[in-house]
């Protein structure tokens, strides 16, 4: 590792984290699943035996009345409810004493017949007989007639049933492991940045000053580790030189003022001029402390905060449904959609004011101001009694969310140099997406185990921890930056730029409609319609969205930069997202919905970066007049119209088409709008567009 390139150190740390976190969880899971398998097998046997004995008793009774076994009537009706109510039982069959199949439900005759014909069930003396039959465990019990054993009843259990149940457990464990690994990466990134990379960067800056003879600055680091010790020695060297200079300065002042020989005073003045020419010292009497603010300062708090918000993503519609109270004039689905839409509305409404507040009051203050309503909102959402108070507390949370996210964006904009702003915004996007993966995944698993309310309390606790970190990390206000905020009317001029308007209406808004209407609202409701799906499954499936975005975003950004074909990528992204939403039309099963989620993730991963990257070209004049940050902020604000519309539109479709149909209808809307954008994108043309300026 080299001290000016800490990337290798961080990569080795990640490797170590992987070695330390994944194998123990794997070993623990492997051992535990083995124990679970041993624990479940006897209980499964008991269950099968109970079913077999009961069925045998019923058939014994019939055979006891003298009805020949092969002439029993209505055996399908007899077996069917048993098979339906007990999914672990794969088939039921009855054979005669020669092993010939008389009745069979749940499996192909050809699969079992050869085995039954070859088996000698009498060998056990008419006892229960257990055998492995291909993928099944076959339990046979004798049916006793007046003349002895009249045949056998067979209960077949899928050998993979227990494996399937264990797989469910393993999937939960995998989610926990993935989330732990991502959290570990965030924490290690924070620890290394805070303790090594950040301080060494400041040292590097001070070194560069000293190399030019400038001793006016020292480092601010005061940790008690090796870096702290090094920096204290480093600072001591600067202060040593500074002290010597101060003493010399005082001595020279004294000589110049008091010496009777003016030539001496002049000679001393020359020495002073020479020293000051060669070296520079602080005017304040001691070296000034140099601090550096970085985008990474807020990464961990932001991660924790977004984690807190995302934790309810997979179960929010169910929680609202549990608190349902009729609202006059609104359908049940519309009431469920309302808190999600109101949350988005409040974010959209508060964001501009939050941005202004961050610019005027400082990011740290606004972040902490935002945490207060957010934490209250999370906590009170846990205590919500009806949907009315949930709407209230989600609105309060949204105010906090808008303040916090705007504070973070403002902080990043303030601390990053213009040319590194995109890279710094990557810190924001990275933290948000990683938190989204973690929050969505662990939220469902947590809610399934601890309940919705407890999960909201956990969210509140995470928000408090984020606040404590911000309090510690953003000790003083960051340096003032360009806080020029345009008037609202000036921003509306943007809409006269047809390319910008088309991007907002036909790309950004439909993208958000799909996100909030389909992903936030419809996906949980649709998935949980399947009785075999639980909340953990919903969360796991929903994780595919942020994972797809995380994987594709950097590639799309690179592709957009390399090819310059940004409008095309946005168009393709929109078409993929809209097309994906139509997939459940072919089959409404979970796999198809999962594929639709993945395609939505790919769509957003493909189009999000190019959408932003297009702005400097599309709005060349406006960016120059209003500032690029403000134009981007306006785009973000305008697209939130889609965020609000999404859940309401989906809820309006549900009574007409059902849950799956509503998703498809939403897909038609999104695909239609994206198709319009795709057509318009051909007219966008390459390079910066300066027509607006020329016409003015």
């Amino acid at each position, binding site marked *: *590792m080299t*001290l*000016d390139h800490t990337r290798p150190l961080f990569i*080795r*740390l990640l490797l*170590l*984290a992987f*070695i*330390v976190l994944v194998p*123990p*969880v794997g*070993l*623990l*899971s492997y051992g*535990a*699943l083995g124990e*679970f398998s041993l*624990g*479940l097998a006897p*209980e499964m046997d*008991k*269950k099968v035996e*109970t079913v077999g004995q009961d069925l045998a008793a019923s058939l014994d009774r019939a055979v006891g009345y003298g009805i020949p076994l092969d002439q029993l009537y209505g055996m399908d009706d007899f077996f069917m409810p048993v098979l339906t109510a*007990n999914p*672990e039982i794969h088939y039921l069959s009855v054979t005669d004493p020669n092993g010939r199949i008389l009745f069979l439900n749940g499996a192909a005759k050809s699969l079992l017949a050869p085995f039954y014909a070859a088996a000698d069930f009498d060998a056990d003396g008419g006892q229960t007989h257990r055998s492995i039959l291909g993928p099944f465990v076959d339990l046979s019990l004798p049916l006793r007639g007046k003349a002895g054993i009249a045949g056998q009843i067979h209960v077949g259990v899928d050998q993979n049933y227990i494996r399937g149940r264990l797989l469910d457990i393993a999937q*939960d*464990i995998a989610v*926990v*492991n993935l989330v*732990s690994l991502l959290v*570990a990466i965030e924490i*290690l990134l924070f620890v290394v940045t805070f303790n090594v990379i950040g301080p060494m960067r400041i040292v590097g800056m001070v*070194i560069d000053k*000293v*190399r030019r*003879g400038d001793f006016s600055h020292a480092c601010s680091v005061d940790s*008690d*580790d*090796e870096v*702290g*010790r*090094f920096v*204290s*020695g*480093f600072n*001591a*060297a600067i202060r*040593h030189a500074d002290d*010597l*200079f101060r*003493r*010399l300065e005082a*001595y020279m002042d004294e*000589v110049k003022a008091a010496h009777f*020989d003016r030539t001496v005073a002049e*000679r*001393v003045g020359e020495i002073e001029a020479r020293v000051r020419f*060669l*070296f520079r010292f602080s005017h304040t009497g001691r070296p000034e402390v140099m601090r550096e603010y970085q985008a990474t300062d807020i990464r961990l708090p932001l991660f924790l905060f977004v984690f807190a918000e995302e934790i309810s993503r997979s179960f929010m519609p169910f929680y609202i449904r549990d608190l349902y109270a009729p609202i006059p004039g609104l359908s049940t689905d519309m009431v469920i959609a309302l808190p999600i839409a109101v949350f988005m509305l409040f974010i959209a409404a508060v964001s501009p004011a939050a941005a202004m507040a961050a610019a005027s009051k400082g990011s740290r203050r606004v972040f902490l101001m935002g945490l207060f309503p957010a934490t209250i909102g999370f906590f009170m959402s846990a205590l919500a009694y009806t949907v009315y108070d949930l709407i209230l507390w989600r609105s309060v949370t949204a105010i906090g969310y808008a303040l916090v996210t705007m504070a973070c964006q403002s902080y990043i904009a303030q601390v990053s140099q213009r040319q590194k702003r995109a890279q710094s915004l990557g810190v924001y996007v990275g933290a948000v997406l990683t938190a989204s993966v973690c929050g969505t995944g662990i939220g469902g*698993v947590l809610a399934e185990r601890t309940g919705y309310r407890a999960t909201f309390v956990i969210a509140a606790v995470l928000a408090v921890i984020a606040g404590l970190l911000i309090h510690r990390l953003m000790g003083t206000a960051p340096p003032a930056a360009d806080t020029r905020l345009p008037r609202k009317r000036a921003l509306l001029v943007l809409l006269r730029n047809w390319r910008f308007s088309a991007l907002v209406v036909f790309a950004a808004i439909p993208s958000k409609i799909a996100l909030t209407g389909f992903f936030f609202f419809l996906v949980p409701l649709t998935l949980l319609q399947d009785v075999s799906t639980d909340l953990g499954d919903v969360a796991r499936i929903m994780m595919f969205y942020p994972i797809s975005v995380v994987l594709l975003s950097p590639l799309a950004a690179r592709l957009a930069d390399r090819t310059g074909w940004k409008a095309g990528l946005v168009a393709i992204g929109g078409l993929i997202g809209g097309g994906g939403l139509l997939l459940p039309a072919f089959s409404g099963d979970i796999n198809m919905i999962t594929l639709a989620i993945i395609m939505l993730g790919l769509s957003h991963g493909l189009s999000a970066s190019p959408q932003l990257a297009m702005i400097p070209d599309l709005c060349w004049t406006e960016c120059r007049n209003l500032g690029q940050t403000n134009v981007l902020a306006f785009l973000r604000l305008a697209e939130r119209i889609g965020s609000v519309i999404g859940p309401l539109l989906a809820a309006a479709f549900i009574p007409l088409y059902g849950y799956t149909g509503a998703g498809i209808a939403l897909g038609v809307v999104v695909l239609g709008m994206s198709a319009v954008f795709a057509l318009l994108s051909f007219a966008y043309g390459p390079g910066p567009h300066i027509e607006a300026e020329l016409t003015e």
Partner: protein
Amino acid sequence: MEEPRVLDQTGQSSLTSAPSGLPSPRPVRWSLARKVSLALVSILLCTLLLTGFFAYYKFESVYSSLVQSRYSFVVFTIKKRVEDSLNLGLPLHQIRQAQEILEREKLRDPQILSIEVYDSQGEVLFDTDRGAIGSMVPAPQVDALHGGTAVAFGASDEDALIVGLPLSNTLGKVEGGVVLRYPIAYIEHGIGGLLFQLAEKIALQLGIFSVIAVAGLYFLFGRVGHKLGAMQRTLGEVIATGGQAETGPGADQFEIRFAEFIAKSHEAVEHIRDATAEVGRLDRLQ
């Protein structure tokens, strides 16, 4: 000619006392390796606990549902037999063989605490515990009858889990219900040992992988600390006794810049000392 000092030279002695005008180096109370170890081992502990927690409770859920489904089946068969009689037109309270059916099922499985049949008002008509006949079942069990005739309902009381099904006649009218009680202790016995085994495994994994984590981190950060310590020593020695810092082979840009920093600092110190001496000499001129 002043002796050059190589930046990555080592030696414990100069770590503890810098022979310079600079103050003694600040002691390392919390080394980088210790800090990161604490973070990583904490994450490992949380991960293992969380994994164990979820695995255990998920297993409990799977195990309980398997046991419940077995008893649901028993209840289902009782329901079928009682409903066969109901379908013959007999009122529920007059199905005498119901008591016999319940007792036979209870005899088959010693884990069953009791089985009872009650009417739609909640009055117990038949019970394996004959003393309970005529008593009233708790209100939730009566309410549960309206949840659907084919849907098993579950409940619990102090030390038992309850699974039940409504009894309905051919017209679909709910006449009453049948419930079976089995002990919570049965579930606890089935999964109880696992908790201890999981705790044991967690402790073992935590121990082994904490050692790996700490060793790995001391190796990684030891080199950082070592390098920084050597650089600091060189700085102190050059400032105090003169000489110049030279970078060894394979030095990175930071070390090269740091060597220049040392040279410049030394140059400044020497220059200021010379200037001070010169001013002193001028001052003494009478």
